[in-house]
């Protein structure tokens, strides 16, 4: 119980940071909104989908997933910054559970995602995004997105604890998330890719997430590859499996790494 309270206090710290420096929140919402607008108006016109409602319907789930995937970088660099400033040492010398700090941070980044997704959803709605599946499934899609971001947060924790410098972490995590989000069905059909890449894209967790969200928002997943592979047939199940696998691997790994973070 105490451990949970400790974690929540750490989460509250992150919210306070946002309150003290609101620019952070503003910029972390402007960026995804900018993506929405750019993709919608720059690429949207030249990508034919054959769907009612056009490209923006397919785009929005892609951008939602991309944004939640970037949680990895946010968590990693936030934690790395604490490490370099010696703040982690203070936390570690406190009589609190060793996992409280990392749990608290993943929760905080999750809450930030709630705000960001809400703003993006609104921006999407303004430029023509109209999910047709009803409130329950739409809600479920957002919970799915938050869960995806949360699980990647734990990869971020591990990355943040592993790197020596906050800037390295930032670059490193973009190096992971960028190909991951573009080598997928998020913005264009995978069928246009060379054959070997198609397989990668199909099994990419970002693709299964995007496909799952499209389903939940009431769309056919036209951007999925042609093959009858398991992930393109069962995107929801596959996404869930990915999240569980990520958490099962990275939660214990990160907590262990944190407890032993013998830097310097």
């Amino acid at each position, binding site marked *: 119980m105490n451990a949970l309270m400790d974690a929540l206090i750490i989460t509250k710290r992150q919210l306070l940071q946002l309150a*003290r420096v609101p620019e952070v929140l503003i910029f972390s919402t402007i960026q995804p909104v900018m993506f929405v607008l750019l993709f919608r108006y720059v690429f949207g016109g030249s990508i034919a989908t054959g769907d009612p409602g056009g490209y923006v319907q397919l785009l929005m789930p892609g951008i939602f997933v991309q944004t939640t995937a970037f949680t990895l970088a946010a968590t990693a660099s936030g934690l790395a910054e604490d490490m370099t400033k010696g703040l982690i*040492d203070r*936390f570690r010398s*406190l009589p609190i559970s060793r996992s409280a700090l990392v749990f608290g941070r993943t929760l905080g980044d999750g809450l930030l995602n709630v705000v960001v997704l809400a703003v993006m959803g609104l921006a999407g709605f303004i430029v023509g995004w109209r999910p047709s599946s009803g409130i329950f499934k739409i809600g479920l899609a957002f919970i799915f997105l938050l869960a995806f971001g949360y699980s990647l947060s734990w990869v971020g924790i591990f990355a943040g604890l592993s790197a020596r410098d906050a800037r390295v972490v930032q670059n490193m995590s973009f190096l992971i998330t960028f190909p991951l989000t573009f080598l997928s069905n998020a913005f264009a059909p995978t069928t246009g890719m060379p054959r070997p890449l198609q397989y990668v894209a199909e099994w990419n967790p970002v693709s299964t997430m995007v496909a799952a969200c499209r389903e939940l928002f009431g769309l056919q997943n036209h951007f999925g590859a042609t093959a009858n592979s398991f992930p393109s047939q069962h995107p929801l199940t596959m996404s869930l499996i990915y999240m569980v696998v990520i958490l099962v691997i990275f939660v214990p790994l990160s907590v262990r790494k944190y407890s032993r973070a013998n830097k310097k």
Partner: protein
Amino acid sequence: MKSIVAEHLVRTYRNGEVKALDDLSLDVEEGTVLSVLGPNGAGKTTVVRILSTLLTPDSGSATVGGIDVIKHPEKVREIIGLSGQYAAVDETLTGWDNLVMFGRLYHLGKKASIARADELLERFSLTDSARRPIKTYSGGMRRRLDLAASLIVQPKVLFLDEPTTGLDPRGRQEMWGVIEELVKGGVTLLLTTQYLDEADQLADDIIVVDHGKVIARGTSDALKKQVGGERLEVVVDQAHIASTMEAVAKVSGHAASLDEGLRKVSAPVTTGATALIEVLRLLDAAGIHPLDVALKRPSLDDVFMSLTGHVAEDQAIVIDNARGKKKNKNSEAKS
């Protein structure tokens, strides 16, 4: 009773390439201040990190407040405060935010955390800046806030790792005042520093550390005596050197030595200021007007230079005075 005991600590980094601590032992009597004095890279921070449970030693043992730091780190954390080399507070938050947060992490409860934060801010003269982000604080204010954060639960044992490194003279003075107040309050303090005057000012006992080993221990006075007592120094014109040397030797009882370049005549004395008066009388009677007269006590800098410069690294010097002897016995009993 000993509040801190460390025995034969060894800690290496990078798979044994760098030996940060090489069989280091120390102990601190409850309610006293021990200063760990040494240059950068001597192993000071490593000692603090081990004693404050942030790091485990490769071998050796340590207790803080009677609790084993390796076996029961979580219990040690309940009775210690730690303030590191870098102000370890959240810079985007205000001073008040930080203290309340740490209070809650010490499980004080919301009301008590707020009360304690207000009290500490007041005590460290930070009330006016309580609602400003730490980013806007001066170096001295940051350190004070960091120290305040380590005092939230009134620790029995406090570790301060180079508390004034990087502060301007005024910031140092303020910090010293704060630390002296704390010590009066009865906390046991282990303080690392590379400033010799800081150890001199704050510590009951000093250990000098170099290359991860204790190379000397004792009180500040004892360490100074180690290098030699006071010296009488007289600077005169070239013409009067010979007769001045005679006068100085007479006062001292030892042969005077001469620094020709500076025309400085000096000799060890034991009579303190009286020696000054005597030598001035003799010079005056001889019609000599000295350019400069001084009674020099060796600084801890001299101590440090002489220790690190001349002492075999594997041999700890134990200072031969009452306190030093006591220490000596302790360390022998342990080893």
